[in-house]
């Protein structure tokens, strides 16, 4: 039995169903990230785990105890809100120990817990200030401190970093990861930012329109996305989706696509389980299309592809190159000093080991 069990959970507001039978089992110490676009039901699911929203159907169990209908304060969970939700009239110290006070923990014990957590998060010097006197990053720490002090079974985070500026967000991300590695607590974390999801999680649930599209480790999600939706949502720039047809040449499966000029090109497929003659959507990540010098040496199937360059975008560490493949824009990720110019032909190296194939009708993955 899992530590946190979400079994066949649904949620409706009136006649509108916003969550469709969600099944997720979270093991103790896992860092589960719920990721998806705005409005897909991430917060709703998190609030249902917290007990802030009622459960329309199914069951949620924490440590083997079904918590449907159990008051939020009796679930031994703690939550960090997007807005931090610090009580404006209380000092940082009072904010952090309010939950313990409400749970009847004696003062000396509260003070000890407060001192420990304040030290851990390096906010000891802020304890007597009001939230209004703190910077965004400090408020963020206090909000996490308030959750930590309770020593809960499960931590729930609802987009905790989205109110910070870009630099601070990256720092706090690392900090949260460090904290998780140190405390080994079970965390459910909501974000719409796929990079946060990839970097923080031990497992990711990609959601869309109230459905869990795929549940898996970051590597599984990235390398073998279950659908075109997951493939294009995770990763930046998004995975290139190229209409192609499977053909056999010299006894080997190839994907036949068209290049910028509309000429046919053949890419040898690494996956053998595709029927010849069928149409597929070929998914190739930008970093799998490179200049030959930047190609992955460990790959067993690098295919050369000559194609016209539409736009180049130097981004410092890499240069992104846009071209047309299968009548759609496709992006390649080159080394920064690759000599490539717009309007000219270039010999790209395509790592077909990393390619995935989707069914054009259902948009689900069919290979590998």
């Amino acid at each position, binding site marked *: 039995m899992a530590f946190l069990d979400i079994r066949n959970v649904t949620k409706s507001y009136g006649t509108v169903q916003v969550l469709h039978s969600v099944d997720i089992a979270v093991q103790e110490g896992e860092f589960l990230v719920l990721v998806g676009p705005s409005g897909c039901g991430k917060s709703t699911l998190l609030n249902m785990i*917290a007990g802030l929203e009622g459960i329309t159907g199914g069951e949620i169990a924490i440590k083997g105890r079904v918590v449907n209908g159990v008051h939020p304060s009796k679930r031994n969970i703690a939550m960090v809100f997007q807005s931090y939700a610090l009580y404006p009239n209380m000092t940082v110290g009072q904010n952090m120990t309010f939950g313990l006070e409400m749970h009847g923990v004696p003062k000396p014990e509260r003070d000890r817990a407060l001192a420990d957590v304040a030290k851990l998060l390096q906010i000891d010097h802020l304890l007597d200030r009001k939230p209004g006197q703190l910077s965004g990053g400090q408020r963020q720490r206090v909000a996490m401190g308030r959750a930590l002090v309770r020593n809960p079974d499960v931590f729930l985070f609802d987009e905790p970093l989205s109110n910070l500026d870009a630099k601070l967000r990256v720092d706090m991300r690392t900090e949260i990861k460090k904290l998780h590695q140190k405390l080994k607590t079970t965390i459910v974390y909501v974000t719409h930012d796929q990079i946060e999801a990839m970097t923080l999680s031990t497992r990711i649930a990609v959601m869309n329109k109230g459905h869990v599209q795929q549940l898996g480790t970051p590597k599984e999600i990235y390398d073998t996305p279950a659908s075109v939706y997951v493939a294009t949502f995770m990763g930046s720039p998004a995975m290139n989706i190229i209409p192609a047809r499977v053909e056999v040449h010299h006894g080997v499966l190839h994907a036949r696509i068209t290049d910028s000029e509309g000429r046919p090109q053949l890419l040898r497929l690494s996956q053998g389980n595709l029927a010849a003659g069928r149409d597929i959507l070929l998914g190739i990540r930008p970093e799998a299309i490179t200049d030959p010098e930047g190609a992955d040496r460990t790959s067993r199937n690098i295919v050369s592809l000559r194609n016209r360059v539409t736009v180049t975008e130097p981004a410092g560490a890499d240069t992104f190159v846009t071209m047309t493949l299968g009548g759609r824009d496709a992006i390649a990720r080159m080394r920064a000093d690759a000599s490539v110019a717009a309007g000219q032909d270039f010999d790209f190296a395509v790592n077909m080991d990393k390619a995935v194939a989707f069914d054009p009708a259902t948009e689900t993955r069919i290979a590998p």
Partner: protein
Amino acid sequence: MAAQSHGVTQDTAVSTGRVTRALIYLLLLLFALFYLLPLYVMGINSVKPLAEITGGNMMALPEVWTLEPWRSAWSTAQIGVEPTGLKPYFLNSILMVAPAVAISTIVGALNGYVLTKWRFRGDTWVFGLMLFSCFIPFQIVLIPMAVVLGTLGLAGSVPGLILVHVVYGIGFTTLYFRNYYAAFPTELVRAAQIDGAGFFQIFWRILLPVSGPIAVVSVIWQFTNIWNDFLFGASFGGTSQPMTVALNNLVQSSTGVKEYNVHFAGAILAALPTLFVYIVAGRYFVRGLMAGSVKG
């Protein structure tokens, strides 16, 4: 002109600014004096012997200064048939106003809290109806209210008046607090729920401490309305009439000479508490108590 000879346009701007400002201040001063004129007339005539007023000199300072009219208005003047002065009625008003303001403000705050943070099916209808009560004129509720007070056995008593004013005021106080709490982040309430705080603990520990500004608005509004009310006081006051009704009886008394100096003193006495509330409560009308609760 000096400014032109220097060719610096900013000089001109500054000097016209100064002239304009002087004009504005002068105008404001005139308006202020004009508005203060009635208070001045009341003030000086309340410290004059009656003879000086009937002599026709309303605007002049007193030749003989006296506090006798104040003493008379407070404790000896004829109110109706009894020579009690305004003192007992002043006390009636205080006994009525203090609980009525406190109760209607607290109930309004609780209503606002429930209507925004503990929403239920049909809550907008409830709020709509309460809002509607703000537009009902006093006169319409007189007869139903008389029936209710009679049934409850509260007719002609201070508790009866308190009930009337609380019922009539709740619509307004609910409106104030609901609108104020609507802007209060619901995430704070959710955080407090997870922290284990109950319905009243959340209200008491989280919402009330930041309700200062709106509580002041509610208190000023309710105090002014209830203290200055005449109609309910005259209709339901019975033997516990408030200050306004007594003042009317003092001024309108048909027997004997009209003691204008006493009337002026009485009128000022009747106005002092509201003035006091504005001065004291206005100082607590501080904004920005919410700063820092959410992102910033």
